[in-house]
């Protein structure tokens, strides 16, 4: 059964190539079957492989062929299957399949239906390679591959230049992180002589001591890659703009899978990170700060997808926090539950947008509770999970993170307090969204209802978002991949606070946005309030900052250089030659008398020389 492993990425790849080569000549039904079916097949095989893996629990290693071999540098095209990989593969193929199914209806009217599925399948392929890779170079292949697919899909509607700009931003900003990661790979290879993940970890443990500089540098470089891909500070600015792509794309790439690749990378190389405590702390801090900043921003947005985007940034911040405090399993657990409920939220938002003439502004919506009941329930469940209301999937994972953070000696309690604040804000913005969009008076009438191909994925994801937390599934294989945290239960007070905080957030959101009991208009409309609002609305003015200090200087630099200043050097030589030419041509003035005079001068000199006068 395990031998079937290479088939999993192969299905989406073949489908994608077929769709690319046929250039949209296939009928839409065929495209839909091919596109969604291939991922479905991949999901099925993943299930089979997963069951086979559960039986033994032994990591499985499969080499397809040698990629390149030069001396000791010999990365293979090889797959490595362990619990972590399996979890990621399940999420990618499972959630991926649901989103593909949803897309077949969502994108039905689009002219480039086939191109869409070609890209989306390619993405699934690249993402699978990323998580299945046995060495960091192959991982990097998947890593860049998903980036390229993300670029293609964000700019899918290429006619609008804004989409193109968003796509480029997504690619370039993540590329900054990727470059750091590439340098990290150089460093690791140069120091440890291999890029295969398992031998790498062994070599690292034998060559490096905890607290050495090199592992810290290497881990920080890897963290740079993770920060770029996972939209964490300071490279998070691309994600909100990336919402320009089709909504199912946002659900799959920019919520469930690709953006969590950074989390996966750190979890995958956790043995390196264990050697570098400062890097671990950096991970935690990056995660916490990002999650708080993004939560504040989400509270002020009015584009439904941007709210969800910031919320994604914030949630991934939680995952980083978990990784940073060494709660590997909790981080990955949150990754899984987040994939469920955020995909659900995005798809529901997509359904709302689909049914409301592509309206994105939440303040133009309202009262959709009765108009779109399926969507409403999906959204409500998703938000509940996001806000980590008790017994939803998000509750379990978030609770786990916070408790493990609390237990970290030293800064632990502070991280815990920060996490709680984040949880409060999360509850506030998620229910703000629910209240504004689905309650209150109706401002817009939907012109259609989601069909069955939308409703089925939504309902399935609802189930997953609700009960995903009870699944032992993710945790069993994970236990084999990570060092087990000490089992030690904190006091009930701490747990109680963790449970209470989201409820408080929910209450605040209710009082402000629905009940109307709290009038905050005065506060909001005051000068400082407005300024703060604007500041948060713009995402802490990060975009402005980057524009001023990076984009504009670069543009002026290219503008300065574009006329090729190097040519000036050669032109100076040319000018000098022309000058000489002018001087000498002046002597060739065509005046006989001048020639005669110069001849005489020459004569004088020659005679003088002959006579030895001079």
């Amino acid at each position, binding site marked *: 059964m395990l031998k079937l492993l290479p088939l999993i990425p192969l299905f989406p790849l073949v489908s994608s190539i077929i769709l690319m080569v046929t250039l949209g000549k296939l009928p839409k039904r065929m495209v839909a079957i091919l596109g969604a079916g291939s991922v479905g097949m991949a999901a099925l095989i993943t299930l089979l492989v997963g069951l086979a893996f559960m039986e033994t629990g032994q990591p499985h290693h499969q080499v397809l062929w040698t990629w390149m071999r030069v001396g000791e540098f010999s990365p293979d095209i090889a797959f490595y299957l362990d619990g972590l990989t399996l979890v990621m593969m399940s999420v990618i193929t499972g959630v991926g399949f649901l989103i593909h199914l949803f897309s077949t209806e969502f994108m039905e009217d689009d002219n480039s239906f086939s191109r869409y599925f070609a890209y989306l399948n390619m993405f699934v392929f690249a993402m699978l390679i990323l998580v299945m890779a046995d060495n960091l170079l192959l991982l990097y292949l998947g890593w*860049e591959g998903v980036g390229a697919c993300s670029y293609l899909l964000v700019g899918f509607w290429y*006619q609008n230049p804004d989409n193109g700009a968003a796509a480029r931003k997504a690619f370039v900003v993540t590329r900054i992180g990727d470059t750091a990661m590439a*340098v990290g790979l150089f460093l690791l290879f140069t120091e440890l002589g291999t890029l295969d993940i398992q031998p790498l970890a062994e070599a690292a443990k034998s060559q490096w001591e905890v607290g050495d500089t090199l592992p810290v540098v290497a881990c920080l470089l890897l963290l740079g890659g993770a920060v770029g891909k996972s939209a964490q500070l300071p490279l998070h600015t691309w994600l909100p703009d990336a919402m320009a792509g089709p909504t199912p794309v946002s659900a799959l790439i920019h919520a469930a899978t690709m953006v969590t690749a950074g989390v996966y990378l750190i979890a995958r190389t956790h043995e390196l990170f264990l050697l570098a405590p400062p890097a671990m702390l950096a991970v935690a801090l990056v995660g916490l700060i990002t999650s708080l900043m993004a939560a504040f921003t989400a509270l002020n947005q009015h584009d439904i997808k941007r709210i969800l985007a910031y919320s994604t940034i914030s949630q991934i911040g939680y995952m980083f926090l978990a990784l940073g405090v060494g709660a590997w399993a909790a981080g990955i657990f949150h990754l899984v539950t987040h994939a469920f409920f955020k995909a659900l939220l995005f798809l529901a938002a997509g359904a709302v947008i689909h049914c409301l003439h592509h309206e994105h502004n939440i303040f133009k919506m309202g009262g959709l509770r009765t108009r779109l009941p399926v969507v409403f329930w999906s959204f409500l469940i998703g938000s509940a999970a996001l806000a980590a209301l008790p017994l939803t999937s998000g509750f379990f994972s978030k609770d786990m993170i916070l408790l493990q953070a609390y237990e970290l000696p030293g800064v632990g309690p502070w991280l815990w307090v920060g996490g709680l604040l984040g949880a409060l804000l999360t509850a506030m913005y998620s229910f703000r969204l629910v209240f504004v969009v689905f309650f209150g008076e109706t401002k817009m009438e939907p012109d259609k209802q989601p069909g069955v191909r939308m409703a089925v994925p939504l309902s399935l994801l609802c189930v997953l978002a609700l009960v995903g937390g009870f699944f032992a599934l993710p945790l069993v294989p994970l236990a084999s991949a990570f060092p087990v945290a000490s089992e030690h239960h904190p006091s009930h007070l701490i747990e109680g606070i963790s449970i209470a905080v989201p409820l408080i957030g929910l209450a605040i959101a209710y009082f402000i946005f629905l009940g109307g009991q709290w009038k905050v208009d005065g506060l909001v409309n005051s000068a400082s309030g407005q300024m703060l609002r604007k500041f948060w609305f713009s995402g802490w003015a990060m975009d402005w900052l980057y524009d001023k200090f990076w984009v504009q200087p670069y543009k002026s630099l290219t503008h300065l250089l574009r006329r090729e200043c190097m040519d000036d050097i050669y032109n100076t030589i040319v000018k000098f030659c022309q000058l000489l030419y002018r001087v000498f041509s002046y002597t060739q003035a065509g005046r006989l008398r001048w020639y005669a005079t110069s001849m005489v001068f020459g004569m004088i000199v020659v005679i003088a020389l002959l006579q030895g006068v001079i």
Partner: protein
Amino acid sequence: MILVNLILILLVGGVIAWISERQHPNLPRWIALLVILFDLGYLCAVADLSWSQIAVVPNPSDATTWLFHYKAEWIPRFGISFELAMDGLSLLMVVLTLVLGAISVSSSWTDIKQRTGFFEANLLWTLAGVIGVFLALDLFLFFLFWEVMLVPMYLMIAIWGHEGRSYASMKFFIFTQVSGLMMLFAILALVVLNQHSTGVYSFSYFDLLGHNVGGDIAYWLMLGFFIAFFVKLPGFPVHTWLPDAHTQAPTAGSVILAGILLKTGAYGLIRFVVPLFPNEAMAFSPIALALGAVGVIYGAILAFGQDDFKRMVAYSSVSHMGFVLLGVFAWNTLALQGAVMQMIAHGLSTAALFMIAGSLQERLHTRDMSKMGGLWQNMPRMGAVAMFFMLASVGLPGLGNFVAEFMVLIGLFKVAPWVAVVSALVLIVGAIYLLIMMQRAFQGKPNEGLRLSDYGGREMLTMAVMIVGLVWLGLYPQPVLDTAQPVLDSLTRLVVEVSEAASTTDIAGAFP
């Protein structure tokens, strides 16, 4: 004789193509294509190489250990002979030349409308000259081929070029000619010095290789060779002929120029500069590495500032070829393999981008990207192809360029980490200009009124060849690596031996 025939077929084919124009204006194209394919077929059929033959590590200074060797007396008085030889490296380069030659004939199929016969003849003669450069191992003969390949290229730019062709062709000629002159001086001085110590004149590579000149004069001779190849590469800051020449050349000219002619510079660095002057080259390597890194970044930055599609691609060449320089002067197997890979991968990807630029110009009559936009709507196939090669140039893993750049950088990192880090920044700036290119030409608002013909079968077939080539290089580059490996092994060993003998300073220590 195989090697002589390789060149002769092209030369004679050129003459035939020229004459055949009188029969039918279309005939030269077919003849040129068939001649190149025949040459390629001849190489494959007659060469009849097995892996075990290729895997033999040749002794650089013993011609009999090479794959092929041919020597005939020419001017015995001065020790000049007609000496050709082929090892794995030249084999790769010759195959690349012929493949890209066929591609360039295809790319100019409809582009060139007048004097097709003479055009195809020039094209074939350029190829003959380039193959001569890749095979010649008598320095005099090498210099002869080095100059011979320029003339038809110059004619191609000067006759069939675009609006600024006379300036561009002149600039191209002067830059390469002046640098070639320096090489000639260096060659003559080397031979004379060799004569002083051994008493016989010889221009043969095999005789000169073991001869260690030493002293300051050797450094200057190395520089003479280096400059000739460096200009051709082209390296910063003597790259400025390239954007003009590329921009003004006809499509096939650009393809050959970028795909093949630049590689002769890289080949020369690997074959001559370092093996002939190992100590001097290694002493020079910090400067060369710095120039390479600056070129890599500088090319990418300038590419971003261009409006002209072809000019942008030309600057991207400057950027990419900087990696070759880095790879050569890092001088370890990994980086050298990367440099060789880069030569091949860059040949394919840039040739394709130039073809796209050429097709755009043919259809839109402009290369100005500010006048394009939304062309994907009109020409989805071309858009998809352009997207592929754009991503290849960006260095997407799984395609040839990535393998090349990664190997260069990882090899370089061992020798000079900071240079590698700076050069790695091109992953970012390179992405910026290529994405902007895609945006400006193919994305954005389409011009609905425009009726443009999309790529047809011939063009798609040509592109498919290159796409398959790049994917193959990206996912299974091992055959290429294995072909180059023995040669590079022998060369690196040579340098190590010499530097151990001279017990100079450690290379790695020279550039921390």
